[in-house]
């Protein structure tokens, strides 16, 4: 079986594989606010760009000295990072280079929307990004309409090709499914179009309702079928599901994401970004407030301490994260790192979940089955 660990182990680098240290930069700007999106974002205002760059650099200079080691991956997400010009990122990276060790970078990802131009993609590649994630959502006008997206998408099948032309070594797309009005046929069309544009990475996100407005979720039973169908089509198309929502061609797993799931350290920069750091045996998590103006005014003072976990509690969280990976959890490695056997964390639930067909376990490995992935919250709840 294909395994994450065997693919990414590049020769010559010491810690090519998570857990390691990553940076996340949040760009909270969006031209139009899509009603299905839960992320913090606001429409861009004149003057924000310059102030934002300054603020990010300020925050970075405060965090830099606390970095636990060299940065292995950088991910710029949003929002719509592609709303900022490549010059922004060139200046940002040159600043970051002074504050963090960036020499061992394995992956630098940027999220872009489907309306991006060819020139912009070339610009981003020039700025130093080697990986791009294109927010396609759907290739079909009708589906986008159901999602409440107003702009057209005629160009979106072309974007992946441009990205490759621009020199990105990994091109990813993401698709949404499980929204009201979507038919299985629509999903399959999206999957087929998705395969046809030849990306390296595909994220499949089931819609999650926002409380007040926006598109509604489909009947969960149908969404479950769609999940299975996606897995079937993408696997047949040469992709491997390495995490509940993520599929990659061999060699193209997102290391940044892998680092989250493998409970690595990361600093988030920008409003609403999250950070995690293990220091002296305790695991700290903090987040910046969802408030751009507050951030612009004082970027080092919008932090909210979320939790300081003593070593007792963090294994549960770590196990929940790790079980999202298709390769599952290696009991021995886990026990070595957290001092607890994951079987013990699951207790009697392990046998119950195995009987119900949610988990598979061998002498060393525990992993979710496809059914287990679909019911992962039921499993995770017991671990807490």
């Amino acid at each position: 079986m294909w395994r994450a660990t065997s693919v990414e182990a590049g020769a010559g680098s010491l810690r090519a594989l998570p857990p390691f240290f990553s940076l996340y930069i949040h760009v909270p700007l969006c031209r139009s606010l899509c009603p299905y999106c839960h992320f913090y974002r606001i429409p861009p205002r004149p003057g924000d760009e310059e102030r934002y760059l300054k603020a990010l650099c300020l925050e970075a200079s405060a965090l830099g000295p606390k970095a636990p080691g060299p940065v292995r991956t950088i991910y710029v997400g949003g929002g719509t990072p592609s709303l900022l010009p490549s010059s922004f990122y060139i200046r940002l990276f040159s600043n970051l280079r002074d504050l963090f060790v960036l020499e061992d970078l394995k992956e630098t990802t940027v999220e872009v929307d489907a309306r991006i131009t060819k020139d912009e993609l070339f610009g981003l590649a020039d700025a130093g990004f080697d990986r791009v994630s294109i927010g396609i959502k759907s290739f079909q006008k009708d589906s986008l309409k159901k999602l409440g997206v107003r702009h057209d998408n005629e160009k979106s099948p072309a974007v992946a090709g441009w990205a490759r032309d621009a020199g990105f070594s990994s091109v990813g797309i993401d698709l949404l499914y499980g929204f009201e009005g979507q038919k299985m046929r629509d999903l399959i069309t999206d999957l087929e179009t998705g395969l046809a544009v030849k990306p390296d990475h595909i994220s499949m996100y089931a819609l999650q309702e926002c409380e007040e407005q926006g598109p509604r979720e489909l009947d969960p039973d149908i969404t479950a079928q769609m999940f299975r169908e996606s897995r079937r089509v993408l696997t047949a198309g040469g992709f491997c599901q390495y995490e509940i929502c993520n599929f990659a061609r061999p060699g193209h797993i997102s290391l940044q994401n892998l680092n989250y799931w493998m409970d690595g350290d990361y600093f988030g920069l920008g409003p609403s970004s999250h950070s995690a750091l293990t220091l002296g045996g305790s695991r700290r998590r903090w987040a910046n407030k969802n408030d751009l103006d507050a951030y612009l005014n004082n970027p080092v003072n919008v932090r909210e301490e979320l939790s300081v976990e003593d070593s007792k509690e963090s294994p549960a969280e770590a196990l929940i994260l790790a079980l999202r990976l298709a390769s599952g959890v290696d009991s021995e490695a886990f026990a070595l790192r957290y001092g607890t056997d994951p079987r013990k964390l699951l207790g009697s639930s392990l046998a119950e979940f195995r009987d119900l067909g949610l988990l598979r376990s061998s002498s060393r490995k525990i992993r979710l089955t496809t059914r287990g992935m679909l019911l992962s919250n039921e499993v995770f709840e017991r671990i807490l």
Partner: protein
Amino acid sequence: MGKNRIRNFSIIAHIDHGKSTLADRILELTGAVSKRDMTTQILDSMDIERERGITIKAQTARLSYQASDGETYQLNLIDTPGHVDFSYEVSRSLSACEGAILVVDASQGVEAQTIANAYLAVEQDLVIIPVINKIDLPGADPDRVRNELKSVLGFDPEEVIEVSAKEGTGVPQLLDAIVRRIPTPSGDPDAPVRGFIIDSWYDNYVGVVSLVRIFDGTLENRSRLRLMGHGGEYDLSELGIFSPVATPVSCLFAGEVGYLVTGIKDIQVMKVGETVTIASRPAKEPLPGFRTARPMVFAGLYPAASEDFSRLRDALEKLKLNDSSLVFDPETSEALGFGFRCGFLGMLHMEVVQERLERHFELDLVTTAPTVVYRALARDDQWVDVDNPAMMPGAGDVVEVEEPYVRSTIMLPDLYLGGVLGLLTERRGVQRSMNYLEDRRVILEYDLPLAEVIYDFYDKLKTLSRGYASLDYEPLGYRSGDLVKLELLVNGEPVDALSVIVPKEKAYYRGRDLASKMKELIPRQMFEVVIQAAIGNRVIARESVKALRKNVLAKCYGGDVTRKRKLLEKQKEGKKRMKSVGRIQIPQDAFMAILEVEK
């Protein structure tokens, strides 16, 4: 004050006809409460009474009243509750009085409890003063009500007094009538003391306080009391009257009503109906006793969190200090764990107890469906009381099952007769009588199984009659019935707390409805849940809750682990609020849902 200046009376009426408001006016007119301190229904002092605008506990007040003859009289007023659950409060209040004010709403007229309460007063040989209240209402029709009082209860139209308790009109005339018509208490002030305990409650500072009516002799403070029923002897530590605030006195004379305190901690010792006398000079015979209020409705009360069991026990014990009609015994349920089987006077009483437990004791409760007490004759010729359907012996082990019946009185405009008769038939009622009054009103007397009455009967009756029908009922004893135990099984396991006893002819429909209601309420689980309704080994209905197929969080928001965790914790919290039967999670409200099943 000589006892010829004492007047003891209760105010009785159908629910909401204005008893407590009339008491307010009387308190005000006699100066017991100044206008400034006056609130509405001042005697309804419990929070739940005030919120719901109803009287639950009878309250007394001693007033001093200067009548038109220039003399000052001592009036002992008892305001009684109108709701049928608390009718025993009316009976025991009446037993301390020589007279009763029967209040009738001028727009509603005579209603079922008007009649029932009037009869209670007649049984005790009391003088009744009929009063038409709310004459200020635009819809008031005192002439019609006068006629009804005459035709239904035989009152002479001349003796009826018209008042507006709200505005105070007619209340002075009423007070005069009280003085003139209600007889002075009989009883010999020099005979050995005989005092009748009307009510007892627990006070945090002094212990049990008892309301007492002195029938014979003179009770002096500091005497040594003997309880003629219980047998114990206790020293009186305080004697007093309510005017309406507690005011100590040195003695209570024959004919007077007051309170006494002995330092007893347990109200079961000072039972309602007890006769107290003086140990040094005891009376020969106790006063005729009083039947203690028997609970009619039983339900299981369980703490939502099992660790709250002992808190629930403490809370019930505290409530019982003040509510002798509440009974409870520990019980266990496979589905609900450790809890109590509690007996109540009726559904309102049950609601009040539940509300107090939840509010005053901050308990989160799961309640099973209320049931009546069945009697089953087992093969070994022994009768057993069954206050929990799960405990009903299996069909093979029972020779006969009996259920409690009530005699109900229903008054309604004949316009709605068709629908109401239909309801009564559906509820297995047996007609005793049907009489037409003037104004196209009808009085029905029906014998009904109590089980058919306790839950939604009154609401249905009100709906079918657009609010015009009124209901009263009293226990009638047990009758044999063709009854079966209907069990609910989830994945083959019977859920004890969901058993019900139903008439055989309705079992099939009830079973089907119950199963489909459960299907609605039981959330999808990680496996299919099969719900069956069965009588003995025979399955009469089957439903299934499909296995849950998807419960997954899509995105890991840029490393936002905390949010994910919170969502999972919320989910977990939600499950904690459910009860598990084997591996199946059943939400708490499912245990009450049996009731919502259309009968």
